[in-house]
């Protein structure tokens, strides 16, 4: 099909598409909701979770405690609210690390080509060869468990992902004629990368970002679940699941609510990613 597709005025067209895109709408609604919950938790939660009233422990859901209380008598709703901060922060920073290091590496590899490219990509392969969770376990064994180390562990494995995506994207932009034109205008690799390459791969990076963000939340909950993520008293969804699993029989709500929180958040982010892909990736848009 011809590349001369008629593109409507870009931003307006995107907006129109956005409103017609179900994945995008649901996904962004969930994402915004979770972000709001996290924000609100800084100012207000139904109960103070730092003060334990053990006598109150393991109350099933009620009006006073809509999601019940845990084994220390803490309000699970408040815990989930505050836990969202942890999940979001860990995933966000880990994605930030992945992007901050991976994108420059990928862009550099694509811009230089040759042995630079080969070396960088082989280094990527080596990182990839380590099963991520295993390395996370090793990292936390050295530095001790905790949110920061979980971030580092997850972040490291985001680096090759973004490096690959950025490189693949950049490689497809470099041979474009407008890049040649920029080179004919005497612009250097770095300048072209900033002016032409990055803006044009921003969309795929953003999409990958939402995917990695969702994976980060899952990874954080996995790490917390084996006791290597956020540490008490800081609540975390994975940790809550871990804490509650022995009590599944008598207090299933303790495991269900944090589990749903994870599923809903990850679902929201994935939907958002899908929606963004539909909106921003012209190749797929054309297909519709």
């Amino acid at each position, binding site marked *: 099909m011809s590349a001369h597709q008629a593109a409507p005025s870009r931003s307006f067209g995107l907006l129109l598409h956005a409103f017609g895109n179900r994945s995008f709408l649901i996904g962004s609604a969930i994402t915004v909701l979770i972000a709001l919950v996290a924000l609100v938790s800084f100012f207000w939660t139904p109960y103070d979770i730092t003060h334990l009233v053990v006598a109150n422990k393991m109350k099933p859901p009620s009006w006073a405690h809509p999601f019940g209380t845990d084994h220390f008598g803490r309000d699970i709703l408040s815990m989930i609210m505050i836990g969202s901060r942890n999940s979001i922060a860990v995933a966000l920073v880990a994605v930030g690390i992945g992007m901050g290091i991976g994108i420059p590496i990928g862009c550099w590899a694509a811009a230089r080509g040759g042995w630079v490219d080969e070396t960088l990509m*082989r280094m990527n*392969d*080596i990182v*990839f*060869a*380590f*099963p*991520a*969770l*295993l390395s996370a*376990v*090793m990292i936390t*064994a*050295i530095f001790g468990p905790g949110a920061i180390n979980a971030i580092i562990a997850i972040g490291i494995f985001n680096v090759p992902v973004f490096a690959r995506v950025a490189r693949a994207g950049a490689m497809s932009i470099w041979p474009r004629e407008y890049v040649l034109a920029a080179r004919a205008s005497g612009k250097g690799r770095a300048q072209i990368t900033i002016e032409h390459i990055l803006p044009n791969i921003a969309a795929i990076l953003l999409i990958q970002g939402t995917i990695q963000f*969702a994976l980060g939340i*899952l990874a954080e*909950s*996995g790490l917390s*679940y*084996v006791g290597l993520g956020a540490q008490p008293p800081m609540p975390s969804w*994975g940790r809550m*699941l871990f804490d509650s*699993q022995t009590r*599944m*029989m008598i207090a299933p709500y303790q*495991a269900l609510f944090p*589990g749903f929180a*994870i*599923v*809903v*958040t*990850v*679902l929201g982010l*994935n*939907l958002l990613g*899908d929606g963004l892909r539909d909106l921003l990736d012209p190749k797929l848009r054309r*297909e519709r």
Partner: protein
Amino acid sequence: MSAFLAKRLLIGLVTLIVASIVVFAVLEIVPGDPALLMLGMNATPEALEALRSQMGLDQSIPVRYFNWIGGMLMGDFGRSWTYSSPVLDLIIERGIVSLPLAILSLFLSTAIAIPVGIFAASRRGTIADSASMGAAQIGVAIPNFWFALLLVYLFAVWLRVLPAGGFPGWGAGIWPALKALIMPSLALALPQAAILARVTRSAMLEVLGEDYIRTARAKGMSRRTVLWRHALRNAMIPVLTILGLQFAFLLAGTIIIENVFYLPGLGRLVFQAITQRDLIVVEGVVMLLVASVVVVNLVVDILYAAVDPRLRVKA
């Protein structure tokens, strides 16, 4: 082809060497004294010293590294400090649980995902498509350990048809052993299947939009025939990539799942060895896992060439 293979092998080898250095260096800085851990709070200093020299911990770091590497090249992975049995034996003992688990999960996830993906792609836009992709969306979002927990309560506690965990060993017979692996592999496979189904579907859709599909249709072949004969093989290329990545993921995923089901597999072995500072076991298992990732990538590369003739460089 052979040049291509040789290059991949060389890269794999370099990966392994770098990995061995990284692993060894990283574990050197792990805090905690394995001898102290073994002898506990009442141990006398002499007893500790005696144990350390038994473990070879009194040698210098480079000497230990080269001893280790040299040993591994000869097929000797050293002796576990805590289990005081050869690491290789441990790995084999555990591997015969983990490997079948990973293979079973991979098999399950492919067996579920690829037909679903193809089905959804061939019925694009129908309710069946939306339903299966909606399910896949949720599948991707479910943490596998949580799913495992739900499975245990459903099948072991409530229905009592499957064991809640543990592994009777292959000696107990194929069926009891397999029974113990059903839930763990399901828990591992389902989220992976969800991802794979989505990839399969989008790869299929992408391929179905290619010009050569139109050429094939212009020959008079029906939609279905074209789907199977022309689209499938081309769509398998991205699917293979994901499968390769998933294998590494499955290996790591076993760490958590083996914990949930207390299966005596490699994942549990490293996890336990790390907490017990049985570093030689950790090193051995990590190297093995890295090597298997390298091998799987190699296999995927070879499969690529099998699927896509453009990658078969003529010698």
